[in-house]
């Protein structure tokens, strides 16, 4: 039976959510700084307003708790993560809306959620002429959402708050690289900062090679790295990655988003010298196998349809879209309608499956996650063995994920539950697309894209999309990113609170 939240729980949730929102507001100093350098006075004013509102809301929420920081129950931690996301969503949408690049506040909310969840779909207007400060904020919130807003708040702005780990886990993060959660959060940021420097440098060089001026090449390199490593998929121009027309640039981006889709535990293992992990890790092996199979299926389908007539076309268009889908990045080097009109059934099946499978757990990627796919496959093999082999021949099923473990029913059931929830969400979202009058295939494609936080589009996501479908997509992006449990905890809390009174 659900226990109604106590007044103490609610005040503790308000305290932690307020803490995160305050620091989210402080981060708006970044676009403000860029705007001041570039003399973009209006966006500076818009972001300053947004920052002021965040600080007011954050400090206001913190007033509900007096005394030393409280401890949190597991459910309260999950609810805190979900509430922080919602408050940051509204706070982040305000400066967006004030810039005048959105027709409605709902569109600004859509883009903010798309950024936070590293989806990459956008409803922004006049995208090719955005101020640098707005572009920086778009990419930055995508990067922030990928690394985890809670991780950021924990790593730099908190001092050993006792409820920290509970909120951290609520944001679909379960890595404990180091014994202390604050140190773990900082380790995540050390890894991210190392890649930020290296990836920006590589993208900057690629930008220079295609003739961008050094200053612009740096900004584009920084933006595109943040969009790639967070598996976000935003780009400063409407043509997305196609704008650069450069294989070198595309190659740098592929490396960045493939590495960005890896588990942070894997990054940390490799950073600390445990290079054997890359051979044995169930998740990575599963990802490489599924990626290769889906690329083979998609490329074969494209070959049959004679869409691209040479190897370069198959790699730069076919492979890039497929691996962009599998890592849930959403960078595109083809136009949205080309996918529906030209790609043919086999390639479309490959790309939809790739989107649903997604990247690694505890990474910036969405989808089922390769770990769960690997676990379900191993459980299936084990059940088949039990069915077909004599009892004496069946031993326990093991798997390696940073350490060897025996596959038990609980792990398999948990993986299966999340996969079923994803499939049900995709089915429901497809139905909403059909209700809005779209054909089945584009509706399914877009549903898989928003649920797995991918950002590839079949052309459904435009300013003309019906409002109820935009609201559905916003909710589904949120649910998909937090992997259901935090959102269920919030719904349970609200339900129990209403019922208990």
């Amino acid at each position: 039976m659900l226990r109604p939240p106590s007044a103490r729980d609610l005040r503790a949730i308000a305290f932690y959510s307020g803490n995160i929102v305050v620091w989210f507001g402080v981060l708006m100093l970044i676009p403000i700084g860029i705007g001041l350098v570039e003399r973009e006075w209006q966006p500076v004013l818009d972001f300053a307003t947004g920052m002021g509102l965040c600080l007011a809301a954050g400090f206001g929420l913190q007033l509900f708790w007096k005394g030393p920081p409280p401890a949190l129950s597991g459910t309260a931690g999950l609810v805190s993560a979900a509430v922080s996301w919602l408050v940051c969503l509204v706070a982040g949408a305000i400066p967006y809306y004030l810039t005048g690049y959105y027709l409605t506040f709902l569109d600004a909310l859509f883009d903010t959620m798309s950024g936070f969840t590293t989806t990459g779909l956008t409803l922004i207007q006049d995208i090719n002429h955005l101020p640098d400060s707005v572009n920086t904020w778009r990419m930055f919130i995508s990067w922030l959402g990928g690394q985890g807003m809670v991780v950021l708040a924990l790593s730099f702005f908190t001092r050993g708050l006792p409820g920290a780990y509970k909120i951290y886990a609520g944001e679909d993060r379960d890595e404990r690289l180091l014994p202390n959660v604050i140190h773990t959060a900082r380790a995540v940021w050390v890894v991210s900062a190392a890649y930020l420097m290296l990836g920006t440098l590589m993208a900057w060089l690629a930008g220079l090679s295609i003739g961008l001026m050094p200053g612009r090449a740096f900004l584009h390199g920084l933006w595109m790295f943040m969009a790639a490593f967070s598996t976000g998929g935003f780009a400063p121009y409407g043509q997305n990655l196609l704008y650069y027309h450069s294989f070198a640039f595309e190659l740098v981006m592929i490396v960045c988003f493939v590495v960005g889709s890896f588990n942070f535990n894997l990054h940390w293992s490799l950073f600390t010298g445990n290079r054997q992990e890359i051979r044995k890790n169930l998740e990575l092996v599963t990802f490489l196998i599924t990626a290769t199979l889906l690329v083979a299926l998609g490329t074969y389908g494209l070959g049959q349809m004679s869409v691209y007539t040479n190897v370069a076309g198959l790699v730069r268009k076919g492979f890039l879209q497929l691996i962009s889908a599998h890592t849930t990045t959403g960078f595109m080097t083809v136009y949205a309608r080309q996918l529906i009109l030209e790609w043919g059934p086999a390639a479309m099946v490959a790309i939809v499956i790739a989107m649903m499978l997604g990247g690694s757990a505890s990474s910036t990627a969405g989808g089922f996650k390769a770990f769960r796919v690997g676990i379900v496959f191993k459980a299936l093999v084990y059940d088949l063995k039990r069915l077909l082999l004599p009892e004496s021949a069946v031993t326990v099923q093991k798997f390696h994920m940073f350490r060897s473990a025996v596959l038990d029913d609980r792990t398999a059931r948990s993986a299966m539950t999340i996969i079923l929830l994803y499939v049900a969400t995709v089915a429901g979202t497809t139905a909403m697309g059909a209700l809005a009058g779209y054909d089945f295939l584009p509706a399914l494609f877009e549903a898989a894209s928003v649920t797995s936080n991918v950002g590839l589009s079949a052309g459904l996501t435009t300013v003309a999309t019906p409002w109820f479908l935009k609201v559905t997509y916003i909710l589904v992006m949120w649910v998909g990113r937090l992997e259901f449990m935090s959102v269920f905890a919030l719904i349970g809390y609200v339900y129990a609170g209403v019922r208990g009174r």
Partner: protein
Amino acid sequence: MYQRGLMQVSWRSATLGILTEFACAGVLVLAAALIALLVNWGVR
């Protein structure tokens, strides 16, 4: 090894770690190029 402190990550192991991950992404690109080559050759 798994829970080594933040300060114990050396430049060497971090660099090798990054290179290993890049190599992994490179293998995927090469596999894709090979598949594209085979498809291009086989379908036509």
